């Protein structure tokens, strides 16, 4: 029996309001150091590594809104009977690199929600599409992320 009700599944297709962030040289440099990049253009903060956008658009939420394990449940999701976040995976198409001082607009949409039986019980999978454009409307990247809750 599925734990996902029709009301929960009705959240598929919902989007969050666009978020605008500035890709500062400092943020690019911090990410590049944290991930031990070796190319000078990344360490100098002139261009961002391919997965820098993950950090730039990670939700900045108050500590009070985090669960006891220190994560934030994606606001795109309904109240699910799955609480613990596990990793997933991503597929990203790139149209141009992110550069220092780019002002970027991100739009996130819940595109799928389903359940599978894992080795230790049911797992909830959800897919979110992220589109990032410059503030002048130039498409920068499109990501489909699949995440798992247990």
């Amino acid at each position, binding site marked *: 029996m599925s734990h996902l009700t029709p009301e929960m599944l009705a959240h598929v297709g919902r989007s969050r309001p666009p978020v605008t962030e500035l890709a500062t040289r400092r943020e690019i440099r911090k990410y590049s150091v*944290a991930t031990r990049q070796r190319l000078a253009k990344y360490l100098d903060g002139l261009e961002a*590594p391919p*997965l820098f956008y993950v950090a730039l658009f990670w939700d900045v939420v108050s500590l009070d809104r985090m669960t006891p394990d220190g994560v934030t449940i994606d606001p795109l999701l309904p109240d699910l009977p799955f609480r613990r976040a596990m990793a*997933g995976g991503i*597929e990203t198409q790139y149209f141009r690199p992110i550069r220092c001082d780019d002002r970027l607009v991100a739009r996130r949409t819940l595109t799928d929600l389903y359940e599978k039986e894992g080795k230790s019980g049911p797992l909830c999978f959800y897919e979110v599409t992220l589109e990032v454009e410059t503030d002048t409307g130039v498409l920068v990247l499109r990501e489909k992320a699949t995440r798992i809750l247990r």
Partner: protein
Amino acid sequence: MPKVDRIRVGDVLPERAHTPTILDLFFYNAALWNGHRIHFDERYATEQEGYPGLVVQGPLQGDWLGQCVMEWLGDDGVLLELEYGNRAAGYLGGTFYSGGRITAIDEGSGEVSLELHVRNEAGDVLCPGSARVRLG
């Protein structure tokens, strides 16, 4: 940097060893604003979540794949697509290896497909991935 007429299907990308320390895990979490305790609170990770140690972040392993591609590609190449999945966890104290190989070459367009991996010391692939690039 690679040229499309000088590479072959099966050629391997240089492998890189990663031995993350607790500082790596801390600063990666900090760069993201990620509070997930399995990456910095060993007692929580082992006693509450049942992991054998602190967990190396899945997206960090994905980044290692991105670095593997971009260092091989050079300044004239273009990354078109990058994909990865976190198949199994890696733990603090381990050494991990990122690498890949060429799986397809389109000489007309200059596009090259790559198969990527992060593996542990036992050879288990923790994070398989793929990429599509265009050579300069």
